[in-house]
């Protein structure tokens, strides 16, 4: 895959992740989430964003780890829709798989922005990481620990487990 130019890092519970910054639309702090009852657990709820409604997903559940306690999330990373991606001069990887709906993931903390120079190692087998392999593009060794690089398009895609 083409190397993304910049990566956004973020954390849920104890794990650090990264994704291509081109996919990111904005970051919300302390978002107010409206829960959707009887929705799949991966959907934590809906967020009102300047006249639009975005679906907020639980990152841990999506990746296959146990969800955190039901505490309010500190941040929501909002991703671009297919329309917004289409306007970019340079498209991030798999941009064509983006949908039209506005989606975001809930995280505990936003970290640094990493540049292109970072070395990316191939992802470990699922048995070791315990994470959904479809979403993992690789790992980046960092002083503080390993950062899992995520495929955003896979992350946002409804899986058979999530879509009813």
């Amino acid at each position, binding site marked *: 895959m083409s190397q993304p130019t910049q990566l956004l890092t973020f954390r849920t519970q104890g794990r650090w992740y990264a994704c291509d910054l081109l996919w990111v639309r904005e970051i919300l702090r302390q978002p107010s989430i409206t829960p959707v009852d*009887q*929705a799949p657990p991966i*959907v934590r709820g809906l967020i009102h964003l300047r006249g*639009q409604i975005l*679906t907020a997903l639980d990152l841990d559940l999506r990746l296959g780890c146990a969800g955190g306690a039901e505490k309010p999330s500190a941040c929501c990373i909002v991703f671009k829709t297919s329309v917004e991606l289409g306007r970019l001069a340079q498209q991030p990887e798999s941009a064509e798989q983006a949908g039209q*709906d506005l989606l975001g993931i809930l995280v505990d903390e936003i970290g640094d922005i990493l540049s292109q120079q970072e070395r990316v190692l191939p992802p470990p087998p699922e048995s070791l990481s315990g994470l959904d392999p479809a979403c993992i593009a690789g790992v980046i060794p960092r002083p503080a620990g390993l950062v899992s690089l995520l495929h955003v398009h896979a992350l946002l895609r409804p899986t058979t487990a999530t879509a009813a």
Partner: protein
Amino acid sequence: MSADETEMLGLFVQEANEHLETLETDLVRLETCPNDAALLNRLFRAVHSIKGTAGFFGLTPITDLAHLMESVMALLRDGRLHSDRELINLFLGSTDHLQVMVAAPDRAAEVDTRQARAALATRLDFEAPAKPSAGGAPVLPACLRGFSIDPELVRSSLRHGHHLYVIELQLTADIEAAGQTLLDYFRDVESLGLLIAAATAMSEGGLSEAVAGELQCTLLFATAMEPDLLLSAFNLPADRLTCPDQAVWSEWLATQPSLVPAASFASSTPPPPAAEVTPQTPQPIMSTPTPVPAPADSPAAGGPAARVKTEETVRISVSLLDALMNLAGEMVLGRNQLLRIAAPTRGGAVTPGQEGLAGIVQGISGVTTDLQRTIMRARLQPVGGLFGRFNRIVRDLGQKLGKEIELETVGNDVELDRALIEGLSDPLTHLIRNCADHGIEPAAERLRLGKPAAGKVRISAAHLAGRVQIEVRDDGRGLNPDLLKAKAVEKGVLAADQAARLTVAEAWQLIFAPGFSTAAVVSDVSGRGVGMDVVKTNIERLGGRVEIDSVLGHGTALIIRLPLTLAIIPALIVGCSTRRFAVPQLNLLEIVRPSAERPIERFGGSQVIRLREELLPVINLSTLLGLPTRTADEAPGYVLILKLDNRRFGLQVELVADTEEIVVKPLGRHLQGTGFYSGATLLGQGEIALILDLAGIAAGRLPSAEASATRALTREAALIATERILLFRDGSAETFALHIANIGRIEKIASSRIERIGGHDFFRQANGPTLRLLRIQDHLPVAPAGALPAEVHIIVPRLIHHAVALIAEQILDATDLPVDSLDTASLRGPGVLGTASLQNRLTVVVDLYSLLQAAGIDAKPPKVGQLSSLRVLLAEDTAFFREAVRRSLTEVVGSLDIAEDGEAAWARLQTGHYDVLITDLEMPRLNGFELTARVRDDARLKALPVIALSARDCDDFHAKAKAAGIDHYETKLDRERLCRALTQVLSPH
């Protein structure tokens, strides 16, 4: 190509596609209206426009084909040619070529249009010889017809002051006889001027007559030379030369598109009709147009230079529209907040300084709504545009498959978001192809089955319950579950035992399995089985669902339900705990508060509430969604009485807020399948409220429609459904009862006149046969009878052939027997229908027939002949069944009156006198159950026998019918059974 040129080319493609779409639709219409002048004109102009604009870009393959089409259409328009199916096919095929060429203009030359062009040219020759004939044309003078004239050449020639001549040549005589070869001759001609056009006359006759005659050719030639000089140069007699008037050229040129600078491109060409661009259009720089509705094109006036005035359209990019919509959405939010603040406080007091504010806010509110609506209309399109395209598909398929198929479209005005319409195009096309290919039988087979020869495919769109419902329905073979299961096993989709366990509905779902096709020969029309599963996926991708309904032998319906992705709808905002929900006003009938007088009760396994005469099921929203519920004491909450299709139910919520106009926002992919929500909206303060999907909420949670109606009527009807019986005693301790309907007459006789012969009692009547008398106790498992008093009664039964009567010492009373109070378990035996406790007495209800049989009298139900005295009233709303029943009964019963629905029947019952009522169950206004309820309620009509006829045959209905007091339930339509039912009703048990 420069950026400008690319842009222009893009515009050309846009316009051409619009023309091509109308062309296709109009061509199909032409088949049914071959002489519609406006239609023919439209066809001509569409092709003419395409030819003109293609000409600028030098797209000769397109102009060549378009020119031929135009010429033939001109003939049609002028009445010199009549269209037939082949010609329409030819035009449609040519339109297809044009579409391909327009889609990739730079590769237009690769499209093989030879056959089409040859065929069109043939039409020109043989129907209307190129040799000019008399007959004025609105646009071109006669001598110029048959030419393919490039207006630019004409213009430039005129500009240079050249003459334009029409020269008639006889090739052999004029040229070769003089010793020149044709090629040399023409080379000379071209050295003297510009050969603009040529037309060769096709000689009469076939091969046999060929070479016999002369070959004639006409030229349109521009030159500076004067006529006489030209004649001598060509060595021609004077009558061969014609020089049309300058005025003729001016007129003609005025109607031709002209090459002008880009700036006025749009205005000089006749504006295109506001048709929609097909999804296959390559997206040029200027994107999709705004479908501003345009009035129908006015036909071009007969004179020259008649411009067609259509509404001007502007092209606007989709993203701009989206931005406008979002802004409008936020404006609605602001407006809602403003409304709250500006609303007068309780008591009508107005905040000082804010007098008059309310009025202003109202004004702004109205404008905001209008603004929102108008912007949305830009994205909403009537679905009729999409449906219209199917006419051609159905027509072509019918031809190809050798079947007769009619397409009916309903709900063409229903508006959908453009994205939705585009997304539906492929799936619907496939569904229609499937109907034509697999569903509809060939005409001969249909006739054999008693169906009309032409199969019907019906595609409809409607807004229902906050969703859009699109149906594709055919009256063909229907789905055969066994066939489907067999195919599934054969294709390895299922194991044999799995297939065997499938229900009918599950078997239908097999058509959506990948790799499934039941066509014996997979026709190339609908493709392989991969089609249907792709259809389902595509529809689900749009956020919708597909359902199947089919009746074997009668047809199949595919029902697509889609969320309303764009709308402003009035909705009621309600709440449960901290959640807020929106309920579409469309479905809301009323709001009631449960109270002590009207509580929510348990009935069967569900909750119900009584609403006037009805019991309605109630769904508790909090329970449904897993939210904490409050007890009835804490807060009774509210019950929303909702209407869904023709069902009604209650939805219990905790609180009810206002009715607002909300903007529907679609839910993301992850939430498409929950089933409870059809969208979301933003409320005044920015809170999110989920819009409830009532169909989804009700699905599977309401008792089936019939059962709920049963419940509704059960309580009340139970009190009303009684049978009229006569109580009597025959000496013993027991009281007997006999259905009054069984009783013909009662007489009092002197016991002394009873004669005993051969172990039986007889009574000789003065007028009439001798009656055998029966003592009930002799035959029933009851205490034996004692001696007879001096006078007894005899009960002569009705409609029994045998001359028999029952002895009853004492006639007590006529009373009502509640239907469900008959105890059939305690006392059993011949002659006993059951026992009941009536008026504090245990009563044995007598079964007349078995009693007679026990007495050795073979009493068969009376023959059909007995019906001839009956006066029957039929209540039936479907004309077909009215007729069917009428035919079944007219010669059987005494008289048959027909009412067209329950109300009408009720009216008849008031004034008329009937022995039996036959009623359909499902009728508008007053249905069969309700009608029966009224009958049973009416003092005079209480005992009227009622037979129900229904198309449905299921346990629920039977039970419900019995509960309602219907004596007999028959499914439509079996004459034998109906007659038997009639006789049974008259002499029951």
